């Protein structure tokens, strides 16, 4: 008999949640993480470094940006945070020129929970209906109402600051700590939009940064440098939140430097009976055993584990009897950033550096199909005053320049665009078994391409953004009219769609593989559509829900 009841593969946002929920529900859990250990506080080695203590003063070495971080740089890395991201010359993958998928990752305990953007929005009821309505992708097996109590549960636990806005059609409300509010420029934009667009509402962002303490986690100190790691535990991460909870049960074992290679499948029992693991340092293989497995290694890696788990009984990969494993992969189409100066607020300033901004929920195609593209987009933005850097980008030298830089520069506020990516079967993740990485793992192949729908949505969004920002009477700053490459929103998801029919879906409505029900996939791979907003909150809610179901099944002996 195994010493573990469950194995959780991956320690990021969903792996941490799975470990917490399963251990708190009485299961003995082995948590596997492919990267090294990062201890909360102790291992945030750059957190308190001043720029003058760093070789490049906080800017990145161009050589690093051109080589080992040539993809990861799209996460807006800096010299403090670049070590949190993988090495692009080691952790390689394939993507065709027509796709140029940018796969941004952090291989260490906590995964991307340490560097995530923390924006935490619920999907709207509309998002769960649109696959069925317009025929793109696979219909969700449940609606918003099924997930709502799990959103409540997760929001209360992780701590999300925000405002209750009256359940806007494009954005349901949740359980919030006090908001971080608007800066003066954000308030001016909110007022202008409210005056000119009755159907639009600019809100303070909803982020997983505490404005009130939770347990040992402090309220945010407004440093706006979360991705270095936060010793105050003021933003949600595995290290600050779910890992301590799981460890407190006494039922958690963590193995780092442990890469999940594949799953061992017993065709007779239609059950996974082991997890094949490679030691990341020595390459030594081993097998871990438990009665159930949660795959939470990140959407693309979870698909990879399943595709590498082929057997005579499952020749196309485990869980692939539908032939849809790895299909319908998505990311949000990031449509650029539009900025404007804001005149008339020169005497106003904001105290601290709040790690939050603004959100404008979807307002198109809510009640009916109004545009020449399907679905919609949302905006997220931020504001600030021009910094000392402006001294290098304009005329003037000497004492007058120095004196002027003692005061803040222009207010600037703006939007970034997240357009929904339609789920399309041809956007796929596969495995190239002929080419291997340094761990002897075959390379992932990622082919996600934008369609005209995303291009039209982003163009519409840019036009609307410029019109709204123009209300402030400032100067619009130049911005490119093109979509960023797939992957750069860092919201890659899909590939193991959920549904009740095993012929057309990979997972059932509880995130279990139809073909091996003791395997749960609860990271972004399980998403049937991507909506137009940050997905991590939804992943967490889905994971908590699935873990509760798994624990119930476990107690009934379903996995015996």
């Amino acid at each position, binding site marked *: 008999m195994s010493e573990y009841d469950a194995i959780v593969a991956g320690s990021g946002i969903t792996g941490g949640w799975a470990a917490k929920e399963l251990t708190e529900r009485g299961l003995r859990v082995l948590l596997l993480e492919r990267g090294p250990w990062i201890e909360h506080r102790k291992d945030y080695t750059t957190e308190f470094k001043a720029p003058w203590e760093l070789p490049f*003063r906080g800017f990145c070495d161009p050589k690093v940006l051109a080589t080992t971080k040539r993809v990861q740089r799209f996460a807006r890395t800096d010299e403090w945070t670049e070590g949190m991201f993988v090495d692009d010359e080691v952790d390689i993958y394939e993507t065709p020129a027509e796709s140029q998928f940018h796969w941004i990752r952090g291989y260490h305990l906590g995964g991307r929970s340490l560097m995530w953007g923390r924006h935490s929005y619920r999907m709207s009821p509309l998002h769960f209906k649109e696959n069925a309505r317009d025929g793109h992708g696979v219909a969700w097996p449940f609606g918003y109402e099924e997930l709502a109590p799990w959103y409540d549960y997760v929001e209360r636990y992780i701590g999300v600051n925000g405002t209750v806005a009256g359940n806007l059609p494009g954005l349901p409300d949740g359980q919030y700590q006090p908001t971080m509010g608007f800066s003066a420029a954000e308030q001016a934009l909110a007022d202008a939009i409210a005056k000119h667009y009755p159907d639009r509402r600019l809100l303070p962002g909803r982020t997983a940064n505490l404005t009130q303490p939770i347990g040992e986690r402090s309220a945010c100190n407004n440093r706006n440098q979360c991705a270095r790691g936060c010793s105050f535990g003021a933003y949600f991460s595995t290290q600050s939140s779910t890992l301590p909870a799981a460890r407190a049960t006494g039922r958690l074992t963590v193995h780092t430097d442990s890469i999940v290679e594949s799953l061992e499948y017993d065709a007779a029992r239609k059950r996974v009976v082991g997890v094949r693991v490679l030691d990341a340092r020595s390459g030594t293989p081993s097998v871990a055993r438990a009665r159930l497995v949660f795959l939470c290694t990140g959407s693309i890696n979870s698909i990879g584990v399943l595709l590498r788990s082929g057997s005579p009984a499952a020749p196309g990969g485990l869980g692939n009897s539908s032939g849809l494993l790895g299909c319908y992969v998505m990311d949000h189409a990031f449509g650029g950033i539009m900025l404007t100066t804001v005149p008339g607020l020169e005497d106003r300033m904001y105290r601290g550096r709040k790690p939050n901004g603004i959100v404008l929920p979807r307002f198109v195609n809510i009640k009916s199909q109004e545009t020449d593209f399907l679905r919609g987009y949302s905006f997220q933005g931020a504001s600030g005053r021009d910094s000392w850097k402006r001294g290098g980008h304009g005329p003037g030298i000497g004492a007058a320049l120095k004196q002027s830089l003692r005061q803040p520069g222009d207010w600037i506020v703006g939007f970034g665009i997240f357009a929904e990516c339609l789920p399309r079967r041809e956007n796929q993740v596969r495995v190239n078994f002929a080419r291997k990485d340094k761990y002897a793992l075959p390379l992932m192949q990622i082919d996600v391409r934008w369609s005209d729908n995303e291009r039209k949505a982003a163009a519409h969004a840019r036009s609307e953004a410029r019109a709204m920002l123009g209300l402030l009477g400032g100067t619009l700053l130049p911005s490119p009219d093109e979509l960023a490459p797939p992957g750069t929103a860092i919201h890659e998801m899909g590939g193991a769609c959920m549904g009740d029919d095993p012929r057309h879906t990979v997972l059932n409505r509880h995130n279990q593989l139809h073909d091996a029900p003791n395997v749960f996939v609860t990271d972004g791979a399980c998403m049937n559509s991507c909506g137009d907003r940050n997905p991590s909150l939804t992943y967490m809610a889905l994971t908590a829900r699935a873990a509760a179901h798994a624990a119930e099944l476990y107690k009934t002996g379903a996995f015996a």
Partner: protein
Amino acid sequence: MGGAVAALVGLMVARLPAVRAAQPPGRDPRYALVERLCDLVIPQTDTPGGAGTDAAQFVLLAIDHGMNGLDASSLELVSHALQAAAGGDFLNLPPMQQSRLLEALDARAFARAPTAVPGSPEMAWRSLKPALVAGYYTSEIGASRELVYEPVPGPERGNFVLTPDYRSRSNEDFGGTL
């Protein structure tokens, strides 16, 4: 676990970019000009200017590592333009004259209808000046004596009305691009 932590520390140290050791001030033939430019852009007032900091070392690092599109020719173009305008010995001119010559180059470089073309001293100055400014405001003196260095603002937040004695926080824009 201890071994894993030690391995991690080793990994992170290994990931720190290899930086060419900065030459001691004075040994790099470019140092005197760069230090002078730093001090002309950000002079000493009631706080030290560029020459009172290690800004020049950062600028040389930026040139040597190609930050902001800089390369060896950037400084050479600026140097030749200033030398030509000075009649051959820019560094030995009185500070006021140095300032006037640099101001003229700066004005051309950032003119509303810029005359800067690729390969021109004006274009080189547009690449070099951000490094000079960043070198100063990311130095300990520039960041924490000239401006206010506020690593932990605290939990209070909200809008307020600026007073004349308000001093910008250097932390507002660390990282990113120059």
